């Protein structure tokens, strides 16, 4: 077909998005990198070039290592569970029994409710004399300081993230399950495979790309965790729940330490970049093909 538009037309269509992305994405991106090489300590309006000083300070900071470690531990607690458990739920939902519509809606509900409210609800259940400790004592254990004990606090926060994520990843699995050919199950059944075996030999291999996708998506969102921590622990007790984004937030907006926060941001950026690149090149390349 003949080109039916003038040469400048495509750019005109792209312009609004381009302006927004430039002002709120590309400029901040380069500025983050720039700030991380500058020193603001003498005069906040006249930074001087600092070379890698901020980075070397960062990598000598115990607090930063603590934040990296906590973020990594958080990821390890959250991701395996979110990769496996929602699949199990999705398999149950996919069995076409009565009432799945209602089950789906109820299990998905926590996804749409604000994380702030979910975190408050859990904080209330985590109270020292709260309902969870009642059940713990019922089974003969000592009450746990869910959010006050450094051994448990990060785990307690991770539970909230898991709780809020199950419905979301369940839906991803559910739409993938529809694509698994039915005759494979029948074949497995005639081979004498039981219910569990059927899923291990058919469903799991078939959904491997989707499982991998869920692993990368949930990893990226675990690396970005913030609201749960802000609402429930503010990084405490004794920094035991201070993760990267919370650390950056604190440095940038409470201590006004621009250079340090920016250097930490660049580190976070690089870590997340690895996961995103894997995600885009391996699992979602269909959507992003030019």
């Amino acid at each position, binding site marked *: *077909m003949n*080109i039916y538009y003038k040469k400048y*037309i*495509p750019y005109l*269509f*792209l312009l*609004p*998005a381009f302006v*927004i*992305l430039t*002002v*709120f994405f590309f*400029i*901040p991106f380069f*500025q*983050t990198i720039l*700030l991380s090489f500058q020193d603001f300590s003498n005069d906040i309006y006249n930074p001087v070039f600092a070379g890698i000083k901020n980075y070397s300070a960062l990598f000598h900071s115990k607090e930063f290592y603590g934040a990296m470690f906590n973020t990594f531990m958080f990821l390890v607690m959250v991701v395996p569970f979110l990769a496996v458990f929602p699949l199990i*739920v999705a398999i*149950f939902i996919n069995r076409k029994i009565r*009432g*799945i519509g*209602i*089950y789906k*809606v*109820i*299990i998905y*509900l*926590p996804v*749409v*409710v*604000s*994380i*702030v*409210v979910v975190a*408050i*609800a*859990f904080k*209330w*259940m985590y109270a020292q004399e709260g*309902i969870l400790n*009642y059940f713990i004592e019922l089974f003969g254990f000592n009450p746990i300081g869910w959010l006050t004990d450094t051994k448990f606090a990060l785990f307690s926060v991770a539970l909230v993230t898991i709780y809020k994520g199950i*419905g979301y990843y369940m*839906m*991803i699995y*559910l*739409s993938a399950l*529809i694509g698994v050919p039915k005759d494979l199950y029948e074949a497995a059944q005639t081979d004498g495979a039981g219910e569990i075996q059927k899923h291990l030999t058919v469903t799991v291999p078939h959904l491997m790309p989707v499982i991998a996708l869920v692993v990368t998506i949930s990893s990226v*969102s675990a690396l970005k965790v913030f*609201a749960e921590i*802000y609402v429930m622990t503010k990084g405490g007790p004794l920094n035991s729940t201070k993760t990267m*984004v919370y650390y*950056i937030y604190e440095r940038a*907006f409470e201590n006004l330490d621009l250079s340090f*926060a*920016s250097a930490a*941001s660049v580190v*976070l*950026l690089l870590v997340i970049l690895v996961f995103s690149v894997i995600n885009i090149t391996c699992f*979602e390349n269909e959507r992003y093909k*030019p």
Partner: protein
Amino acid sequence: MIRKFIDGFLSHLFLIFMSVVSLFPFLWLISTALKGDSENIFQYPPVFIPKEFTFKNFIGVWHQIPFLLYFFNSFIVAAFTVILNLIFSSLAAYPLARMNFKGKNFIFALVLSTIMIPFQAIMLPIYLIVLKLHLVDSYGLTLGYLGLILPFAVNAFGIFLMRQAFLIIPKEMEEAAFIDGCSIFNIWRKILLPMSAPTLAVLAIFTFIGSWGEFLWPSIVLTNKALYTLPVGVNDLQGMFSANWRYIAAGSIISIIPIIIFFITMQKYFVSGQSDGAVKG
């Protein structure tokens, strides 16, 4: 036959258990909010059905917290974020799906690259830019709203989602319209947009949920309580009523009513699988 029955029974048992887990935190908040002053909310064993059933806490917190204002603020921010996302994403998606132009691949790569950069890593300079542009509440309410809306006015997920919707529309439609003398802008507005209505709806709904629940950015930029959105206002309950869990619980429950109604009425979009891979808030 019996096997099948047991199978179904076990499935229901598991899904009922999951539903209980899913609802329990909210039910416990409701139970706490409905308890009267003489009732010990820390009582062991816990009491689910309040003995001294009362709406007092809901009324009390309603009078102290301007929930309607927070609803309004959240709604304005979410609604405009949705509108701008729909317009900007579908505008940008058109040339990326349909036209050939110089630098197309470069622009494509540029948009794609924004997916890999997390907001959290660049939020500090974004804040500095927003300050410089005076898009904060200390310069006026409208500017404050703009500061909440504009950084999220478009994103790569939306552009790619719309682009995919445009790709499957037959080219002949456009050609016919062009021969009939339709301008390029009208082809976009009168053919592509209506034909991709289902995708627009998905984008709208998920952008709305994301914006409605956004917490990090408003808690950074907002200083004026008159502009508080719901998540920020609800988080504030903790500071205001430090140990009064009846009020905190009642306030939290009030705050989720609008989104629950929205979710129930739009449930088919959420749980039908159309949203697969759609924007996550």
